[in-house]
């Protein structure tokens, strides 16, 4: 089932004026607003024709489409713009795929957690929180997973600066 057909099915339950389809090299991406995300995911999983029972990947992306401000020490900081979360879904029953994208404001990146829909989202969301700072509402245990718990900053953002010392050890070369 292609993304356009899936969008036809979604029209029955959701107001799809805000949904957008973006074409990409690997396929088409369905862009959804964050407020309908949780209901949409439950529908995608439970509906018989769609049956997306497997969340293959959940990742964060720093789109870096804000304004780059130069700071005194030569580095730059990004103000405004978006972070995004991508959800790659797959159905074992019907063997079709779907990609969802949610745009979040950079200053306050909050999105509902889909942990209760697919359990595999648990650690993926912790990773996105750890590396981008995206806060997933409703997650039962949102804390850092890869970096140590007392780390400063979110490394995979494009304007991340490496900290000088971590617990007495010098970090940069």
């Amino acid at each position: 089932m292609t993304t356009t057909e899936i969008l036809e099915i979604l029209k029955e339950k959701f107001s799809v004026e805000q949904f957008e389809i973006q074409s990409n090299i690997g396929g088409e991406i369905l862009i959804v607003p964050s407020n309908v995300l949780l209901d949409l995911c439950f529908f995608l999983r439970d509906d018989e024709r769609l049956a997306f029972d497997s969340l293959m990947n959940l990742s964060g992306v720093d789109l870096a489409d804000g304004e780059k401000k130069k700071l005194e020490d030569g580095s730059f900081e990004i103000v405004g713009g978006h972070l995004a979360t991508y959800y790659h879904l797959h159905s074992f029953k019907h063997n079709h795929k779907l990609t969802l994208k949610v745009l979040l404001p950079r200053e306050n990146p909050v999105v509902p957690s889909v942990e209760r829909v697919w359990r595999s989202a648990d650690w993926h969301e912790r990773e996105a929180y750890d590396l981008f700072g995206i806060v997933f509402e409703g997650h039962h245990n949102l804390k850092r997973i890869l970096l140590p718990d007392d780390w400063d900053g979110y490394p995979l953002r494009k304007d991340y600066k490496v900290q000088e010392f971590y617990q007495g050890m010098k970090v940069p070369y």
Partner: protein
Amino acid sequence: MGILDKEFTESNIIITKFDDLMNWARLSSLWQMTFGLACCAIEMMATSASHYDFDRFGVIPRPSPRQADIIIISGTVTLKMALRIKRLYEQMPEPKYVISMGSCATCGGPYWNHGYHVLKGIDRVIPVDVYVPGCPPRPEALLEGLLKLQEKIRNESHVKKQV
């Protein structure tokens, strides 16, 4: 230069036979704490396996730091792991030695520039005796590192102060 000549120029003390015996005992039975982190660990396992056997030199792997003499840091050391390595190093009883194997443990390796999570060299945390370069070093290189460590131990003395 004979042994006597060497000693008199350095500190006026002759290394006794007891020192030689103790040093020989220490260098012939370096028990290794199994600590493999990344790719270099595979080369360390290859060194312990049949082709290049570590056991010939008396090096057996012991799982507990309390029974080990030497810890071979093999692999990339992240900052999170560095705290644990420090704790394990402190649990080892004296006299203890450290071999830093591979490029990552020596200086951060391929991650020296952009690796925000990598500790650029384990010698920022624990004192290292021998550095073995390579990415990963071949088993022969690791064996040479071990032999250099044995040479270092052979020249140690209970009488002279350690540097």
